[in-house]
């Protein structure tokens, strides 16, 4: 098991500053600071909303004070791999909604795309501005050794968590100014400006006036509402709900105190199926009737493009290294986790005979739900999954249980190693922008590999050192 801070002979170089800081601070001070941080998060209302489950509807994601650190060289390699992947995923999306060259070449099976429920026939033949579909690509990475990073999952629709990247840093800088004075940490606070620039890049018309960009949220009851309002605030954009928007005269408008104002770009934080009740789910109250017509006429830009989800499910994931070779003619910088696709008979046989070693995931599942962690599961749970796989093999993939890296974390019984993953956020507009940092999620339970906030995960500030 690889611990990112503690090497065989003392702290690994990127962590020297943090290790020294922990030594001088002491456990009691750290625990006091932890409570202080929690108060700060509560007071700012940095919560995720869980309505309808009883208990406190606005919950805090546990924040761990000990930062996760990447050295400059580590980051440069990661960044190259992240950007490469974001380019390939967008090339793939344009291709599958046009001639489908990668399918004709037999590199990716047609069924994976055309029979995917995220594939939208409405998008076939349509050219979004800049041929970009996934403008914010969140790539989930795990680390298994000093130089070993692997991609666990791609998120091409509306990856969340970036507000935690920004707020975690704000809180850390507020609480431990001396820590930042002694370490050269790359700033992350340019993210919102870069997001705004990315949105403005994508505006269908460019007049003398800056384009009007809005953030479309399902509303205050959505789990990520805080993030929606935070990003709108940081960008100086309006945070709108469906009831603030309407379609008229071939354009999208928002209702303002001066009357209707035309909207150019919508950063939508609602799913495809809710976008437009006339085209998708007729019972959607979250979308705007007629929006898809205006979009297809090129008079408003949706970020991300509808149908972008076809690039990020767990079965298509297996082919991303091939996409990189196919579209970019490059060797992948970041490797995938070896993955067995239950849809393929020989893979399925392997999975069924090795269930006790593998992690089985639903192709369309997310949030850490609907998965089997073979080595931890009971015989009955494994039998249950074997039945499910036999019943609908294409719905499952399996991966070896990885030994995720650990980072020291403050626990009720002192500082201990806990497993982490990492989600950087890559912005794709007329140019590609990558903030040096991202969201580190940590599994707070001892030995646990599940980092999802819905299942007891926490977050850490993530540093990229500039020297």
């Amino acid at each position: 098991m690889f611990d990112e801070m503690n090497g065989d002979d003392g702290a690994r170089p990127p962590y020297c500053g943090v290790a020294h800081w922990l030594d001088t601070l002491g456990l009691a001070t750290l625990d006091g600071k932890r409570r202080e941080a929690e108060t700060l998060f509560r007071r700012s209302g940095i919560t995720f909303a869980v309505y309808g489950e009883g208990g406190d509807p606005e919950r805090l994601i546990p924040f761990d004070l000990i930062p996760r650190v990447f050295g400059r060289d580590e980051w440069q390699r990661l960044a190259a791999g992240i950007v490469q992947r974001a380019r390939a995923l967008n090339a793939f999306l344009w291709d599958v909604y046009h001639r489908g060259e990668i399918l004709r070449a037999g590199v990716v099976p047609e069924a994976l795309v055309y029979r995917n429920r995220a594939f939208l026939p409405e998008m076939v033949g349509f050219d979004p501005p800049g041929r970009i579909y996934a403008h914010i690509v969140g790539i989930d990475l795990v680390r298994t050794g000093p130089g070993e990073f692997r991609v666990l999952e791609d998120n091409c629709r509306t990856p969340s968590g970036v507000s935690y990247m920004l707020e975690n840093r704000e809180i850390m800088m507020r609480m431990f100014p001396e820590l930042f004075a002694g370490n050269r940490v790359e700033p992350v606070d340019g993210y919102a400006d870069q997001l705004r620039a990315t949105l403005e890049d994508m505006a269908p018309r460019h007049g003398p006036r800056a384009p009007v960009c809005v953030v479309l949220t399902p509303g205050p009851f959505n789990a990520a509402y805080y993030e929606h309002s935070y990003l709108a605030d940081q960008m100086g954009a309006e945070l709108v709900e469906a009831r603030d928007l309407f379609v008229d005269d071939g354009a999208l408008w928002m209702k303002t105190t001066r009357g209707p104002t035309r909207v150019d770009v919508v950063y939508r934080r609602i799913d495809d199926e809710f976008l437009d009740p006339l085209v998708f789910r007729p019972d959607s109250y979250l979308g705007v009737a007629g929006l898809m017509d205006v979009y297809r006429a090129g008079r408003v830009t949706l970020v991300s493009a509808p149908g972008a989800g076809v690039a990020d499910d767990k079965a298509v994931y297996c082919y991303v290294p091939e996409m990189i070779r196919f579209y970019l003619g490059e060797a992948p910088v970041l490797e995938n986790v070896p993955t067995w696709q239950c849809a393929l008979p020989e893979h399925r046989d392997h999975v069924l005979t090795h269930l006790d070693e593998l992690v089985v995931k639903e192709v369309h599942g997310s949030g850490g739900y609907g998965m089997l962690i073979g080595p931890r599961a009971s015989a009955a749970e494994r039998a249950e999954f074997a039945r499910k796989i036999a019943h609908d093999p294409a719905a499952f993939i399996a991966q070896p249980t990885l030994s995720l890296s650990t980072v020291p974390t403050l626990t009720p019984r002192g500082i201990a190693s806990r497993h982490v993953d990492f989600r950087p956020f890559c912005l794709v507009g007329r140019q590609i922008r990558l903030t040096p940092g991202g969201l580190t999620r940590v599994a707070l339970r001892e030995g646990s590999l599940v980092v999802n906030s819905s299942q007891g995960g926490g977050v850490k500030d993530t540093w990229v050192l500039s020297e």
Partner: protein
Amino acid sequence: MSTLSRTAADLFWMARYLERAESMARLVEMGARVAMLPARGVTARDEWRSVALAAGCDGYFDPEASSVDAIILGLVVDRENPSSIASCFERARANARSVRTALSVQAWESLNETWLRLDELTVSRVLHELPQVVDWVKGRCAQFRGAADATLLRDDRFEFARLGLLIERADTTLRLLDVKHFVLLPETQVVGGDPDRHRWTSILVATSALRAYHWVYRGDYSPERIVDLLLLNGSCPRSYAFCYGEIVQALEHLARLYGARHACHTSAAATLAAIGDTAIGDVFHTGLHGFLTEAIGGNNRLSREIATAYHF
């Protein structure tokens, strides 16, 4: 410049609910004071019932069944009562949360912290430490206003919030003066017996205007002068005249920003002019209750005209 109509509405109502929370705290303070020395022939419970009436909560309480404690709890913490202090904070915070981007961090955090600390208003604290609870509420409201005043951009959104506060405050002052309790008291001569005097001074306490009264009128309490201070004196910050002076200013600022005037501009200016032309003697001559009823109606009308003019 323009603002989302929903944002304008939420800011307007956020400010109204906050002002309502504070008004309620002031009414409770007045109630506690009056009930300590009830007038001849009435009980403490009767006095609290008139407070509930002034607060517009008469529909919520069963006047026969409610005990003093039930009324106090109903006015302060009961979430079933939409006008209780806790409910007002709850709604103000819900409005603010959906327009967070229109508030400064400091203003939002002040309101959010108030909301987080509502749990501290336990039943036993409300019943046993009522003065401290009232002070806490007034303090939280003042802190929010201070944060807003020091950090909010003076744009149209600021004016929508300001209009909400002023419309609510005008409404509260008018209703306070309209409580039967006060209207039925002798109006023309210097206040006589101690209980009467106690009530009239309580209204000054509820509006934090006791010291202002002495400063302006330097003499005995008379109903005419007290009503004059709260209706027609434009320098008293809770008076009807003051509220309308500020409302006209806020609307004029909006007219400059937007380059357009609406029905609400005409109505507010007309009301302010009429206040300037009114002498307190006339008010009492034609009847205070009639004057107040008309003013409350006009204030509600103005609120609707503002909403229509700015599409919310």
